[in-house]
Every structure is written in C-alpha cells, then in structure tokens.
C-alpha cells in the first residue's frame, strides 16, 4: 500500500495518461454489485477503498438504522471484489457481469442489487 496521499478521482485524468495501445484487445471486466442492505452497519470501508469509487453511502437507512452503500451510476465496478473482502458484515459482494445470477437479481450494468428482509 503506497504511503502518502489518498488517491483522488482526478488522478485518473492526469495529463500524462494516454489510451493504452492494446485497449481494444483488453476487456475491462465489469461487475455487478450485490448488497445485503440489512446486514450493513455503515462502516464505509467499501466506499472508502473501492479503487473505482463506485460506491457511495445512501441517504436511506436500513432496518438497523445505518446508512448503507449504493452503486454510483456509470457502470464503474470492475469486479475487483475488494469491497467483498473488506466488508466486516459479509454484506456486499460482486459477480462478473452476466454470470452468477441470484434469484431476483436485476440484470444491470454495474448497478447494485439491493435486498432487504
């Protein structure tokens, strides 16, 4: 983990970035974020450390009274699953888009599936 400043959204748009030469051959994975809303205890690890800043905290409360994460619009998730590994409540996981359907999962492009009790 690099020392120093936390990554900011602007770092991906630095003037020194160029489009990689093999960009058309490499497929960036896309993930479908699944959130068990009522397991969440609002710790914000996932929001903080998603490398794509694909999550934000909802203004809604879950049944326990915590704000829970929701996917930002824009198909940002790349299925890295860091949120899945960091979450202390086993409340969030990703699947590669198009694979691994759960019952009742809405097919979406990087959209979150929110489920409650």
């Amino acid at each position: 983990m690099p020392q120093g400043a936390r990554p900011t959204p602007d770092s991906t748009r630095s003037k020194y970035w160029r489009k990689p030469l093999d960009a058309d051959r490499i497929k960036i994975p896309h993930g479908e974020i699944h959130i068990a809303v009522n397991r969440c205890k609002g710790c914000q690890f996932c929001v903080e450390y998603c490398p794509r800043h694909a999550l934000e905290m909802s203004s809604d409360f879950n049944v326990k009274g915590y704000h829970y994460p929701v996917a930002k619009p824009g198909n940002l998730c790349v299925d890295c699953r860091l949120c899945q590994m960091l979450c202390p409540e086993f409340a969030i996981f990703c699947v590669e888009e198009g694979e691994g359907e759960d019952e009742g999962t809405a097919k979406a492009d990087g959209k979150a599936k929110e489920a409650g009790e």
Partner: protein
Amino acid sequence: MTTKTGVAPDLTHPMDGLLRMDRMPHIWCPTCGLGTTVTAFATAVESLGLDLDRLAVVSGIGCTGRVAGYIKVDSFHTTHGRAIPFATGLHLANPKLKVVVISGDGDLFAIGGNHFIHAARRNIDITIICVNNFIYAMTGGQVAPTTPVTSKAATMPYGNFEQPFNIPHLAESCGAVYVARWSALDVRRLAKSISEAILKPGFSVVEVISPCSTLYARQNRLGTGLDLMRFYHDNCEIRHGADTRELAIDYQSKIVVGKFVDRERPTYLDSMNKWYSEAFGGRYETYEGSVK
C-alpha cells in the same frame, strides 16, 4: 430471548457456506476488523481448496475469541489463554486435522504467553492468527501486552507506561517457522499469508493489525475503525524479511508489515517419529494419530 434478525433470504453471500448463518449477525461492532479478518481467512481456506471437514478452528476468550463460533467447521471456544495447548492436543491426537488458532493479542500473549512460546519452541504444526487490536476489547478496554506506550486504557487511565511485546520478534525468537504481519486493510496480502501459514509445516504466526472502534479508538479519541484503517493505509510500510527486532509498534507510529520469517525446522511430530525410529531400531511404527 433475543429476536433473531435473519439475513436476506434471497441474497446469498459467497461466504455464507463457511459461516454459521444461523448465528448472524455477529456481535462485533461497526468498523471492527474482525469480520474482515474472517473474510480473509475464508478466502485463504477457499483458495487452498482445503477439506473443510478436516479443518478445526480453536479460539480463546475475547472479541477475537468469538470467531470460532461463526465459522462452520469443527470449532472450539475454549478458556482464556488456553487455545494453543487445546489446539496442540487436537492436532497431536489427529495430525490429519488442520488446526488453526484464531485469538486475540491478550488471550495469546498475556495469559496465553507461556503456551505460545512452548508451542513455538516445539514447532507444533498449527497456525496462529493473532488479531491484534492493542486492547482487551471484550471486557471494556483494559491494557493489553501489546498496547503502545502512552495510549489510554481502562486500567491505564493516565496512559500506558508498560513496554508492549513485539509479536513477530517474540514469535521468531521462540522458533516459529513462519511469521507475517498485515493490517486488516491489506486483505489480499493477509489472505495470501494465511494460506502460506496454513500450508507451512510447523508453527506459523500471522499477526493482523485490526481496528477496534469502541474501545481502542474511542478511548484514545482516534475516531472510528475507519479512521484507524485510514491510519493503516497511510502508515503501514511493507518490508518483507525485515529484522524482527525492528518491528515494535509505538503509539500512532509507522507499522512495518510483511512476511518476516519463512524458514525450515522439523515439526514436533517429525522430530518425534525420527527420534523414536532411531531409538527403536526399525521396530517403531510411525505415529500417525491416537485415534483409530
């Protein structure tokens, strides 16, 4: 008496198979690193393709001690400080079991300290995952043998003046064959270290620097576990193979993480079997367990 709050019946987390879902939600606080540690453990176990029927988890008393109760393998919640000798008995009686001790810094190094050093000395083939949150959280935030100097604790209300243990150094000096330290934030490397530790024959130790929001952070006004994670992000420095003498952790100081020890030593059973087969001149039947 307590109402059971189940989890979404139509949403199964990939880890639910390894968890005792009938006991969820767990008791740990929001922003506690224990849930994350359990996930890293589950990731490690899954990546190794271990036979879960042969995996046993033993824990002691404390917040980390509750880990055994949530993992769906043969799991043992034993007495304070005695997870290691219990695990030793379990392993030696049936060496086919993979025995992992998951316990806290106080449980393993205060009351359990003597058992730690002897199991390391003997190189018993078990894995120790020490979740170090620098405090006795379950009982209300008392000082632990890892609490950094100057930090506040319930039994050090004017600030801690005791020098804490340097766990990797202790483990190395006592003979552990594998010693690593990661923060709970560094989940992938942590999971990888846990895998390596489990596979490694002999006494393997993985120290997990874990945030404790309700006691350690709150008593020292450091925010929540998220703030501690941010601190780990900015202050953990990876130095594989670092000299363990230099791995002490001061209050809110740099934390050196990495894999520090990975060496070879015959395990207790290997030594025993070799010794007896020489002593008995070939009439000795290799010990493979006390259970028929």
